[in-house]
C-alpha cells in the first residue's frame, strides 16, 4: 500500500488524519480515491505540489504510484 502524508494545513480536509495507506496505480487514481474518502479535498490538492518517492511534481497527472511509494503533499513552490 502506498503511504500518503498530509501537511498540517491540509489536516482540516482530512479531519485531522495525517497519513493514509492506499492501493492505487497512478496519481489520478490516488486523487479519485482521496476525493471519495474526503469529498472536497481535491480542490485543496489541486493547489498543492506533490512529492512521489522523493521527486517533486508541481503538476502530477498519471505518474505511477507503487505499492511501496511514499507520497507527500506540499505547498507549491514559485520562484524569483
Amino acid at each position: 500500500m502506498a503511504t500518503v502524508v498530509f501537511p498540517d494545513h491540509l489536516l482540516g480536509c482530512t479531519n485531522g488524519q495525517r497519513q493514509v495507506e492506499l492501493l492505487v496505480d497512478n496519481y489520478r487514481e490516488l486523487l479519485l480515491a482521496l476525493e471519495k474518502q474526503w469529498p472536497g479535498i481535491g480542490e485543496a490538492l489541486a493547489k498543492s505540489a506533490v512529492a512521489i518517492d522523493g521527486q517533486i511534481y508541481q503538476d502530477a497527472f498519471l505518474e505511477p504510484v507503487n505499492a511501496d511509494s511514499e507520497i507527500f503533499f506540499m505547498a507549491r513552490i514559485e520562484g524569483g
Partner: protein
Amino acid sequence: MAEAVDYQVLGTRPVRPDGVDKVTGRAQFGADQNLPNMLHGKILRSPHAHARIKRVDLSKALAMDGVCAAVTGADFPTVASGVSIGEAGGDVMDIAHNVMARDKALYHGHAVAAVAATSLEIAEQALDAIDVEYEVLPPVLDVLQAMAPAAPLLDENCFTKNLPEKPDKPSNVASVMALSRGDVEAGFEQADLVVEGEYRIPMAHQGYIEPHACTATVNEEGKATVWCCTQGQFDFRTAIAKILDWKVGDMKVVPSEIGGGFGGKTVVYLEPVAVLLSQRAGRPVKMVMSREEVFRATGPTSGTVCRVKVGAKQNGRITAAKAWLAYESGAFPGAPVGPGAMSIFAPYDLENFLVEGHEVRVNKPKVAAYRAPGAPQSMHAMEVALDDLARQLNMDPLDLRMVNAADEGTQAPYGPKFPAIGFKACIEAAKKHPNYTAPLLEGAGRGVAAGFWFNVGMQSSAEVRLNEDGTVIVMEGNPDIGGSRASMSLMAAETLGVPYEQVKTYVGDTESTGFCNLTGGSRTTFATGMAVVRACEDIIAQCRSRAAATWGVDEEQVEWRDGQAVPAPGVNADVNPLSLADLAAGAPRTGGPILGRASLNAQGAGASFSVNFTDLKVDQETGAVEVLSFTAVQDAGKAIHPAYVEGQMQGGAAQGLGWALNEEYIYDADGVMENAGFLDYRVPVASDLPMIDTEIVEVRNPSHPYGVRGVGETPIVAPLAATANAVRDAIGIRINDLPLSPPRILAALGGE
C-alpha cells in the same frame, strides 16, 4: 565532486549570442519601443496609505488639449476571485485590484487612475487635473500591529485561510500554515542547550536597474500587441487577458530585453492599463515608470518577524527546532511564507520540529517574488540561531552544520526524501577553502551561513531549426536575464555535437514560439534547457533517418557522432559521414526542412544548497561595515556556462549583502515610504564590495540530461546570516534585526 563525463562545449565560457548588442547600446529594452502616433500614459497614485475612494472625476483631465484617454478602476471589468495566474503573482482579482484600485486605496502609491496624452508633459499635467475624493483611513504598517485583534482592517472580506475552524471575524491575517514532525517539546527536553531569538527584517526591493515599461497597441480588429520587459511573456499574456476579460488569442506579448527582474517582473502593473488606454484612444500607448514609482508601487519582498528556538546536545546534534514566522504580504495576499516555512530547516536532518507561518496584510505595496522568495528571511533566523549555538558549544560553525546536515535519503522538512544533494559537499569545500583556513585579520569578524532553494521545473517548449547551411537556430520562450541564451546554445551544441558558434538562440514572442512558463525559480537552464536538449535529439533522430534514406540503409544502421551521421559499427556501407550542413543541403530531396521540437513539464528540479562565509570589519566610530572578503560555495549540479553561474552567485551575494547591511523600506507614521530613490535606498556600489570569491560544487541532478540544478535563487539566501554572524564576531554583540546599518550598529555599541 568532479564530473566524470567529458563534454565538448559544456563548461566552457563563450561570449553570449546577445552580447555585442548589449555592449554597444543596440539591444532594445522595455523603454526602447516607440511606435508612430504613440501616446504617453501616466498613472495617478494614491497619496494615502489607506483610504476609501469616494469619487474620481476625470472630466477636467479629459477636456485638456492633447489628452486622448483616461480611465479609473470603474473602467476595468469586474474580476472574480479564485483563479490564480500561473506563477505570476497569485489570485487574479488581487492582481487586477493592484493594477488599478477599485473602492479602496491600500497603500501610498496605489494606482487610482490613468491618462494617455500626446506628450509626457501633458499626461503629467492631466494627472493634476483629476479630482479624487478620499476618505482617509488609519493605516496598518507593522506586521505584529496588523495581527492584533483591534487592528484596522484592510479588507472586511478577508477571513484567515487554513485555520482548523472557519473564522467568524475578518482579519488582516490572510492565511496560516504549519509544518511539523515528531514531538518538539520532548525534543527540547532532551537538549543540553537551547538558543532562541526574535529577528526582524524590513521590506526590501529587488532593485532591478530598469524601471517597468511597456508599449501597447490595440488595432481596429480588437487585437492587441504589448511590448514589455517581463520575466514571462506567456504568463503576462494570461494576466492581461484575465484582468481585461479578453481572449488570450487576441493578445500578443513581445518580450523586450529585460534589465533585471529577480522576481519583480513576474507581475503585471502597467500592461493592462496601457492596453485599456490604447483601446480607448485608438492609438499606441507607452508607459514607463519612474524610479520613485518602482519603489512605491512594485516589488518589494516581505518584511518579516521570525522567532526561532533550537535545542541541541553537547555534540551539536539538534534535538528540536521551532519557528514562528510572520510575513507581510503588503496590500493583498501573496507573501512567500510557505516557501519560507519549508526552507527554514531544509538543510538539516531533524527529528522534531514545528514551523508556524502567518501571512499578514499591511498598507504597503503588494509583495512580489524576490529571488528564493521567503527563504532569506526565515533562514536568516535559523542560521543566526545556529551561530549562537556553535559559540555556546565552542564548535566550528561549519562542523555544527555538518553534524546536522541533510544528505541523500534525509527526509526534508517539507516531506519528501532528498535525492542526491550537495550540502555536505558544500560544507567540505568551504572548510577547505583558502579563505576559510586563512587567519582572520586583527579586529575583523568572520561569519558563516548555509543557503537552500528548492528550484522548480514547470512547462517549457523549444524549437530547433536547421538552416540551409547547417547552422542551427534555437527558439525558446524565456527572457534572457543573465546569459541563458548562451546556456541554451551550449546545451544544443553539446547535444548535436557541433561547435558553439554554429548555434544561435533566440527568445520568441507569444506567437513565434511555444509556451514557456516565466524565467524564475531558477528553472530556465533546467527546464527550458531540457526542452532544448530534447528538441535537438528530435533533430538527430530526423538526421539519422535522412542519412539512412540517403545511403539506402536502415535507420538503426546510422549513428550520430560528433555532429555527423555515420554508419553504425559493423555496417558495411562505403559512404562519407554526413554533417548537419550536408543533411541541410540534401533536405529538399529527403523530405523538406528539418525542424526539431519538444515541449514538456519538467519535473525533478534538484535543490541547490550553498555555504557562504565573509570576513568584515566594523568601524567603532561610525558603525560602518567594511566587507573584506566574501566566499560563496554552491552546488550547481553541472555548470553549463561557469561564468554565468559565478555571476549568479556574485550578484546574489551582493544583493544579500545590501539587504543585510543597508537596504530597507522606511515608512513614516502615515505610511509614506521615506526613501523611494536610489540615493536613500542604498544598494551596494562597486566601492562597497570586495571581489566575491566563488566555488562551484557539482553534484549531478539525476533528473536533467546534463545534471543541471537551478542556480539563480540560492545565492541570496545565505549572505544575510553570514553577514550578521560576522558582525557578531567582530563586535562581540549580537544584533538580531536587519539591516546592520551604521545607526543600528552604533546603537548596539553604545548600548553596551
